[in-house]
């Protein structure tokens, strides 16, 4: 598979289809890979593929430093490719501006990432080329997809509050979670705005709660569950639980899952007249 990837990359660079290939290279340790940006056909041997290819490389579509390199081909797993669908819908990229080398994937991470346990996109839903043997994308039932949430949803109000306060307390406001997120693409995040100062920049309990809730909420109905934010959080806050909770609510209320169907309206920029309003008085 690595050979196939390299060959594909070489071909695309040689025939001028793209200027750069965003892929995975060897990392600092054997248990790690790192993003690499291949601009010369002779460098394609730097590309690799293994279970440590956790990164969602679409995040580099938002960075001016990597945009500068020219039209990219991106090596994308099924989950990552879902980002493309959201980015297209949200008018952040044009289809012709990216070339997608989809890879079929059996799961990444060691131990296996939680997102992979309930993966229904082993074969990407959108690609220009597919590398790897095509897998059947089996549907995973709703309950199973959100099973991770059960034990937390069960908690009482006070226990929930205490659990999250303990988590948020750790936050050091490094913003790795939003910087890594391919869908956190605002040039200036709300937390960086101080006229008015909506979110306290201090990493104290008050500022941390409003930051973490706001970050999660801004991804509501958009997050494609790549789990990158949780992976990079240096203090190990289970951000994925917040994201998943929102995904679950969006799916339950609007019957919508981001990144699956390019024809679906974006959940948060549309409405239905009969949307649920049981909680309204």
């Amino acid at each position: 598979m690595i050979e196939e990837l390299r060959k594909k990359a070489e071909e695309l660079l040689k025939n001028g289809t793209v200027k750069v290939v965003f892929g995975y290279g060897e990392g600092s340790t054997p248990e790690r890979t790192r993003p690499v940006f291949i601009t010369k056909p002779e460098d394609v041997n730097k590309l690799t593929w293994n279970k440590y290819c956790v990164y969602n490389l679409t995040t580099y579509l938002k960075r001016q430093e990597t945009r500068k390199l020219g039209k990219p081909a991106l090596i994308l797993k099924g989950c990552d490719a879902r980002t493309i669908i959201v980015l297209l819908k949200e008018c952040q990229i044009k289809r012709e501006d990216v070339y997608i080398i989809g890879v079929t994937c059996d799961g990444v991470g060691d131990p296996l990432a939680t997102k992979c346990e309930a993966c229904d996109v082993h074969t990407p839903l959108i690609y220009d080329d597919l590398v790897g043997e095509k897998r059947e994308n089996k549907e995973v039932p709703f309950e199973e997809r959100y099973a991770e949430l059960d034990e937390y949803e069960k908690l009482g109000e006070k226990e929930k509050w205490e659990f999250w306060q303990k988590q948020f307390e750790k936050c050091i406001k490094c913003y790795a979670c939003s910087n890594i997120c391919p869908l956190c693409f605002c040039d200036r995040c709300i937390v960086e705005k101080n006229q008015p100062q909506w979110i306290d920049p201090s990493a104290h309990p008050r500022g941390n709660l409003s930051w973490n809730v706001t970050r999660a909420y801004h991804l509501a109905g958009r997050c494609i569950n790549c789990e990158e934010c949780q992976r990079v959080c240096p203090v190990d806050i289970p951000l994925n639980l917040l994201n998943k909770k929102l995904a679950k609510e969006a799916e339950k209320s609007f019957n919508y899952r981001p990144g699956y169907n390019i024809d679906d309206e974006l959940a948060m920029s549309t409405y239905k007249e009969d949307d649920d309003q049981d909680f309204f008085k």
Partner: protein
Amino acid sequence: MSETKFEPKIIAFLCNWCTYAGADLAGTGRKQYQANVRIIKLPCTGGIDPLFLIKAFERGADGILVSGCHPGDCHYNSGNYHARRRWNVFRPLLEFCGINPDRIQFSWISAAEGGKWVETINSIVDTVRALGPFEGYHKLNTIGPEISGEAAAPSETG
């Protein structure tokens, strides 16, 4: 020391066209209701960012009301529909984080529903009074100033 009765602070975010006018009607009709509510008038419920709610709790609110035009009556056609979507996901998120959803209430109150306004306010004040002060949240103000019922600094009003 005599025990002082807890009086909840309720912040109401109202749309200009319906609920605010409804509250006005209650006033001109000289209807009585509990005086625990402070109203913030906005053009439309569609313009209420969830951060407003968070800020209100940070600043000492014990309960929040968000209210606007009935579906189909929005002055801007669809603002309230968009708002409804937002609260559909934001409310469970707060609940997931351990915030009692009863501290935040949503309602549709038209300009003609002065009576419903009175009922709604009385009901949320009673509910929140029973829940008690939102100490959990207010205690988070460990570094920043303890803020209650004060005007914001100029920089905060942008």
